[in-house]
């Protein structure tokens, strides 16, 4: 089981903030997106994190990971 999280404008676009998926084969961040959002290409400039660290789309995802997708940050 992996947890997927979406934030800010991306959360609003998708209409959900968290979901959990069973994965049965090796996955990358990008393939997790495709599995969870088969009808929507990953928006340009989306940032990606696994277990709260920034990672590239090619990063491996394993069972138990938390994968996050969000737009450019605007804090401070």
């Amino acid at each position, binding site marked *: 089981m992996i947890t997927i*999280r979406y*934030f*800010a*404008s991306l959360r609003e676009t998708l209409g959900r903030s968290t979901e959990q998926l069973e994965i049965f084969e090796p996955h990358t961040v990008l393939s997790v997106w495709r599995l969870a959002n088969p009808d929507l290409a990953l928006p340009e400039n989306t*940032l990606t*994190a696994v277990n*709260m*660290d*920034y990672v590239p789309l090619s990063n491996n995802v394993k069972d138990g990971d938390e994968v*996050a997708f*969000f*737009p*450019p*940050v*605007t*804090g*401070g």
Partner: protein
Amino acid sequence: MTIKICDVAFEPFTEIQNFQNPLTLEGKFGATSIFIGTMRDFNDGDDVQAMTLEHYDGMTQKQLAQIIVAAKAKWQILECLIVHRVGDILPNEPIVLVAVWSAHRGEAFEACRYLMEELKTNAPFWKLEKLATNETRWVAKNTAKVKGI
């Protein structure tokens, strides 16, 4: 080294004073550099009446802790404090506070600036503005830092 996420308004000078009072650094720090970011009532040419700050709880703290570790590797920092607001914010309310204590001013200034720039680049916060027209919009992009003096 303290990181604090506040979901209600905070008083930056009270925060700094309360953080500094119990420190056992008397006579050791010569320099304190502080930055406070405050909500304006305008942005990008529009009047703004309120803002909601969303964040990724957990990742925020993890990223800020990593930024502090990186700053400590670059400069001799005695102490630092980061406070960031989340939730519903009104104009004139503080959003962020970064304070650095060091023996020397160069280190304090540069570490404080670095922490702010890294925070704006890496910490997972997002601003949703409510305009005077009642429309809402996500702030798309942080301002780039201007080049150093």
